């Protein structure tokens, strides 16, 4: 019982999802949707990892998938902490107002 779909389709699908994430990342004006699009991009990258793991029949891909998920979780936790601090200072999370690098 194996997948009979050529691996090219899997890679194109993962890249399509990555493109959606990247475009969403570039368009969005508020920090929350930015982080959500970031998670989408990371999920697309994971899809590519698993396709390559299945292509080369190596467990390494699955383990690397596991590690990428950990880093994604830490990144979203810290990203949201920064966003809450930003919200405390400026009472909104519009990214257009984040001009002064003085923080």
């Amino acid at each position, binding site marked *: *019982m194996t997948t009979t779909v050529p691996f090219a389709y899997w890679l194109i699908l993962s890249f399509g999802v990555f493109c959606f994430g990247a475009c969403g990342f570039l368009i969005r004006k508020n920090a929350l949707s930015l982080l959500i699009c970031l998670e989408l991009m990371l999920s697309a990258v994971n899809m590519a990892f698993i396709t390559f793991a299945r292509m080369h029949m190596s467990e390494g891909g699955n383990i690397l998938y596991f590690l990428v*998920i*950990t880093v994604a*979780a*830490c990144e*979203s*936790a810290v990203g*949201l*902490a920064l966003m*809450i601090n930003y919200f405390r200072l400026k009472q909104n999370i519009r990214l257009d107002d984040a001009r002064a690098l003085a923080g």
Partner: protein
Amino acid sequence: MLTSDYLGVFVLLALEVVTGVGALGASYFLGARRQSPRKTSPYECGIPSEGAENQRFSVKFYLVAVSFILFDIEAVFLIPWALSYQDFVHSSHGVYAFVMGMIFLGVLTLGLVYEWRKGLLDWNK
């Protein structure tokens, strides 16, 4: 067929969603319909609601959610370790697996101790 294992899960999910939506649909059509302004205002023991509608809440809930994620992933990391632990013991690498597990648990307890000392866990202001 490996995916046939998940067929059972899929059919059970379909059955439940159908019952959930079916019950709501039935009550939508069967139920009486008498809308009145008092009925559709937010419920506050009968008195008309006052105070800001969308309030903000203390950041404590966010901190609980964050520590939940980070400890949940540490628990998920422990599961593969626990799973292959007995194989390591049988192949006489028990001490290796034990030491690796204890290092990981130590890092995990370090995080918990940090949270405890910093007061992220105690709830009253």
